[in-house]
């Protein structure tokens, strides 16, 4: 099929409603009789609840119901969590705390009232008597004997041990010329989608179907879990993800508040709305990262990697959300990064602490891996006195070695790492930058250049490797008019698949993207699907749609051949028509074939009427996008501020459907990754009080923190799916964090610095600049 639209930078079909303010997010939904829910949350990190007095709240005019933990424990299932690791201690949690709280922000009671102001007042009128218990927030302390225990029923706070060894690491380290080691900490982060969480639930007439609108990335999985949670048959429940204002993994989850809204709609008979405040969002929406990795790398004199050992501590927080124990284990799979690491030993402990649960945040387990391998490569380069680019180059698998099985246990699909590295170095003028750096150092100005050659695990993924199915569904319906409706199980929330899927469908069917409408995020309209996360929507969901289109094309070819008295194999699609191959000039209009399928008066034998197909695509493997990022920083001598003066990103996400969308994903990803390197950190004090509980304290990046990024691409199609796409949703985040930290460390090299912990705030750099002597 000729590509008229795939590969073009088409403006998004989504945008007119978004730029004009006419779209509908959860908070924009309003219904007659709607009540508002507010939550009373724990002010202690660890405490027994001795008494809850709800009488004052109940007496407030306008309050319809007040509920506490005992009621929901008796009437609702627990908050679900997936993933199995042998001998894992899995904490159980109800929608509201029962007798004990284990983090600041844990829901204790819920109020519904006629308006949100009254609901908030009532929630604040609930009196709770606590018996505070010692809290533990540092995972290394939590592992020690004698540490306060979160759960009486568990012998200690260690939830799981996960590990593997491939190759012989002992031998590798024995035969090494050089061994480098360092501790790398991925600090705790808050995802901060600009739209906080929120849900509306109502019993809808005539059949009392329980309808829930939620700001979610996974409407179908949410319905399955909510059905269990609030004990409603799944086929009597509908979940709608309306316009969703960003997710970044934080809405790839099933939360207590979603269950509470559903339960209270059932209980009161009124529609119930809950919109999370930003303070609640930082305290009680999942956090990301929070992992400590002790890394050792064994190399030969020439820089060849022989082996790697990682000892990892994952801070899980107090409870499990949907994927809490799974995310940190992904770090092991990707620990070798883009390099040949013949032997790898990975040991991880997952630890419970008095903090909010960690879970999937943009990159989810892979940024941690990329950070540790890309940092240790720089530490090794420094030790070996090799250029960091050269050390990377020497350890890349060659393009002809793919599919490449790694010591992390996965099979990389396709890549040319050196090509992306070379292009990035060229674009950044790496040689020129090194000369300039030497010059600046002489003048006492500290400039640093950081590289990161990342690979990531995307298009999640084969079902055998996923907790709840890794396939995706796609339905394509060609309507009698020839217009096309696509129903996808993917649930985009800003990524733009209403546009990119329409581009693919238009090219395949010889129509225009304007002829295609892509519908997502409604369990009543769309066959069961998995959702949007792990850079999977196009690679898995797009492929399901593509396969459904192929079914319809085969059918249309049969009908066209029948009408033209030829055979289906001689027919092909062309813009607006189906033509007989071979230049005879014979053809039949697309709309005529569509009409014939619906009129059904003259169909070939065995061909059913109608034009609708549904496919469920099960990928055979993940995809593995890659690239090289180059970051240049200059340190402000007076303040220590690391200022990014240049940023080059060369990414390879396989075939590109819409370059505009790909660039947008990379830009946004870079900023989130840079923010981890330089700004963001969720901080709890030693008592478990959240110190970064508002956007005043949690440092999100702003427009003036960045220069204009310079982007380019290499294109290595993936063999895993027929579209050849790999996914790009997380690439920027994964690639950028180590590039920035490598740049700062490089700038501080004259001071003998080999590592600096994130976030690299001005103060840390300033202390080094003022406290040490440059060599």
């Amino acid at each position, binding site marked *: 099929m000729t590509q008229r639209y795939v590969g073009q930078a088409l403006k998004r079909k989504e945008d007119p409603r978004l730029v004009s303010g006419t779209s509908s997010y959860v908070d924009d939904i309003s219904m007659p009789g709607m009540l508002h829910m507010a939550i009373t949350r724990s002010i202690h990190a660890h405490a027994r609840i001795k008494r809850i007095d709800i009488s004052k709240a109940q007496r407030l005019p306008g309050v319809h119901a007040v509920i506490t933990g005992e009621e929901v424990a008796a009437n609702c299932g627990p908050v679900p969590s997936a993933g199995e690791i042998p001998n894992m201690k899995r904490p159980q949690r109800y929608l509201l705390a029962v007798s004990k709280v284990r983090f600041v922000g844990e829901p204790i009671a819920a109020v519904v009232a006629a308006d949100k102001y009254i609901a908030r007042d009532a929630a604040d009128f609930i009196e709770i008597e606590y018996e505070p218990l010692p809290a533990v927030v540092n995972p290394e302390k939590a592992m020690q004997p004698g540490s306060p225990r979160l759960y009486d029923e568990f012998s200690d706070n260690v939830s799981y041990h996960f590990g593997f060894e491939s190759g012989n690491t002992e031998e590798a380290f024995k035969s090494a010329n050089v061994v480098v080691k360092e501790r790398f900490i991925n600090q705790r982060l808050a995802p901060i989608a600009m739209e906080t969480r929120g849900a509306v639930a109502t019993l809808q007439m005539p059949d009392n179907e329980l309808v829930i609108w939620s700001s979610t990335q996974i409407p179908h999985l949410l319905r399955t879990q909510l059905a269990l949670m609030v004990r409603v048959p799944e086929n009597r429940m509908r979940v709608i993800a309306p316009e969703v204002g960003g997710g970044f993994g934080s809405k790839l989850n099933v939360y207590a508040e979603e269950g509470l809204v559903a339960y209270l709609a059932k209980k009161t008979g009124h529609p119930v709305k809950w919109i999370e405040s930003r303070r609640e969002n930082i305290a009680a929406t999942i956090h990301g990262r929070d992992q400590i990795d002790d890394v050792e790398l064994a190399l030969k004199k020439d820089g060849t990697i022989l082996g790697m050992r990682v000892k990892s501590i994952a801070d899980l927080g107090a409870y499990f959300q949907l994927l809490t124990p799974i995310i940190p284990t992904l770090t092991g799979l990707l620990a070798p990064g883009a390099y040949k690491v013949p032997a790898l030993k990975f040991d991880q402990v997952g630890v419970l602490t008095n903090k909010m649960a960690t879970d999937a945040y943009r990159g989810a387990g892979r940024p941690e891996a990329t950070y540790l391998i890309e940092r240790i490569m720089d530490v090794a380069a420094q030790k070996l006195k090799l250029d960091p680019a050269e050390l990377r180059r020497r350890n890349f698998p060659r393009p002809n070695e793919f599919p490449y099985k790694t010591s992390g246990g996965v099979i990389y699909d396709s890549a040319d790492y050196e090509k992306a590295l070379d292009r990035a170095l060229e674009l950044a003028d790496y040689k020129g930058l090194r000369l300039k750096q030497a010059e600046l150092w002489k003048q006492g100005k500290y400039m640093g250049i950081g590289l990161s050659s990342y690979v990531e695990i995307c298009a999640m993924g084969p079902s055998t490797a996923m907790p709840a199915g890794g396939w995706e569904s796609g339905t394509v319906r060609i309507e009698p008019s020839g217009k096309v409706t696509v129903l996808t199980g993917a649930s985009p929330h800003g990524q733009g698949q209403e546009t990119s899927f329409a581009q693919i469908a238009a090219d395949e069917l010889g129509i225009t993207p304007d002829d295609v409408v892509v519908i997502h995020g409604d369990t009543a309209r769309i066959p069961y699907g998995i959702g949007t996360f792990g850079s999977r929507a196009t690679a898995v969901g797009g492929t399901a749609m593509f396969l459904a289109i192929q079914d319809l094309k085969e059918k249309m070819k049969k009908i066209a051949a029948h009408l033209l008295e030829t055979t289906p194999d001689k027919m092909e699609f062309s813009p607006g028509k189906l033509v007989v191959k071979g230049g005879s000039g014979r053809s039949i209009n697309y709309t005529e074939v569509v009409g014939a399928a619906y009129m059904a008066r003259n169909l070939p034998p065995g061909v059913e009427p109608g034009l609708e197909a549904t496919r469920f695509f099960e990928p055979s493997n993940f995809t593995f996008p890659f690239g090289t990022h180059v970051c240049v920083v200059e340190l402000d001598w007076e303040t220590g501020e690391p200022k990014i003066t240049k940023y080059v990103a060369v990414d390879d996400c396989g075939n590109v459907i819409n370059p505009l969308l790909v660039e947008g994903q990379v830009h946004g990803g870079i900023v989130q990754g840079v923010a981890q390197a330089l700004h963001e950190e969720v901080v709890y004090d030693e008592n478990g009080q959240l110190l970064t509980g508002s956007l005043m304290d949690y440092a999100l990046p*702003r427009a003036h923190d960045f220069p204009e990024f310079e982007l380019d691409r290499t294109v290595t199609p993936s063999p895993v799916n027929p579209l050849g796409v790999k996914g790009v949703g997380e690439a920027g985040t994964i690639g950028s964090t180590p590039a920035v930290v490598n740049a700062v460390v490089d700038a501080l090299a004259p001071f003998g610095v080999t590592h600096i912990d994130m976030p690299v705030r001005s103060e840390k750099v300033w202390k080094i600049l003022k406290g040490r002597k440059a060599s």
Partner: protein
Amino acid sequence: MHVKIRINGKPYEKDIDPRLLLTHFIRDLAGLTGTHIGCETSICGACTVLANGLAVKSCTMFAVQADGVDVVTIEGMARDGQLHPLQESFWEEHGLQCGYCTPGMIMCAHQLLARNTAPTDTEIRDALGGNLCRCTGYQNIVAAVRSAAGKLKREPRIAAGD
């Protein structure tokens, strides 16, 4: 308390609680939900509207403070079905992804362009310092504002809400 607030040229007269926030007046009483709430503390800028021509964060202004004020929201930007050059440029330059911050960004950018018809990129980035976006990495937002400035220069347009 009794207030009269003009929003996008239309008067809304209501009896309200003194503690009602302007953003809730706009969203819940006037039914204009294009103005979004992102932090309730003036940090994120999603709720930015124009009040007598000045960009304000409607989540930290009481509705009673807007008594007698002319407010313009994102819904007031398009004219006769024609998008405002800023709205067009955000669309053309892919200056949005999830769209949640977009109305506030556009209102804030509107104020910038009213004051400075040819801002540099640095001036654009500084002017948007009170508006957070988690999706775009800001680059295409800057491009959109730059492009809109060019369009408005070629084809001056009366300020929104006039």
